[in-house]
């Protein structure tokens, strides 16, 4: 089965010192993605502003599957 890694920037207002709550947030996003995408998605929380921004056409998906 295909697996997808989704990097999501954490909004400062969503940050909590409570690790359990942060993990629950990550899992909630994973579950929300599972149904519409129909592939397993692992969500990685990253710091705001760290994902690359593109001018012009965005390349937001990197396919690393080997056929």
């Amino acid at each position: 089965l295909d697996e997808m890694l989704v990097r999501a920037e954490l909004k400062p207002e969503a940050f909590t010192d409570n690790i359990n709550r942060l993990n629950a947030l990550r899992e909630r996003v994973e579950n929300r993605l599972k149904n519409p995408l129909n592939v397993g998605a692992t969500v990685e929380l990253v710091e705001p502003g760290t994902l690359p921004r593109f001018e012009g056409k965005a390349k937001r998906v990197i396919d690393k599957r080997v056929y």
Partner: protein
Amino acid sequence: MSDHGKYRIKQLSIFSENRPGRLMDIARDMKEAQVNILWFTIAEGSGYGVVRMLVDKPEKAYEKLTSNGHVVKFTEVVAVKMEDKPGGLYDLTVMLTDAGINIEYAYGYRNSPSAVLILKVEDIDRAIDSILGSGRSLHDVSHFK
């Protein structure tokens, strides 16, 4: 009790991705802001960490870190003065258990000749009342300046 505020210690909690250099970035900010780190730990999440720090100038540290794009929050904790001898932690936890106070997390360090126990609890004011009411002492914010 009206003086709860002085016992609410501002701990910095910083979101940090789990990759090389993140702690270095935080440490550089503290060096540049001339903030002294009194204690710190990294709580491990899933692919990330939360750096928790007690510093001598929390507001200055907060300002520096946020201006450099870090995600930071103040978390209020209490600092219990402990005798540095066997059984002190047990006696305290018995009292907290009897008072129905749940500890979210805790850490301690020696502050010779005594020790300090830092507690993160849900209801900080109730914890302050219970600890002081039991005859124990708390460090106030001036202890961390």
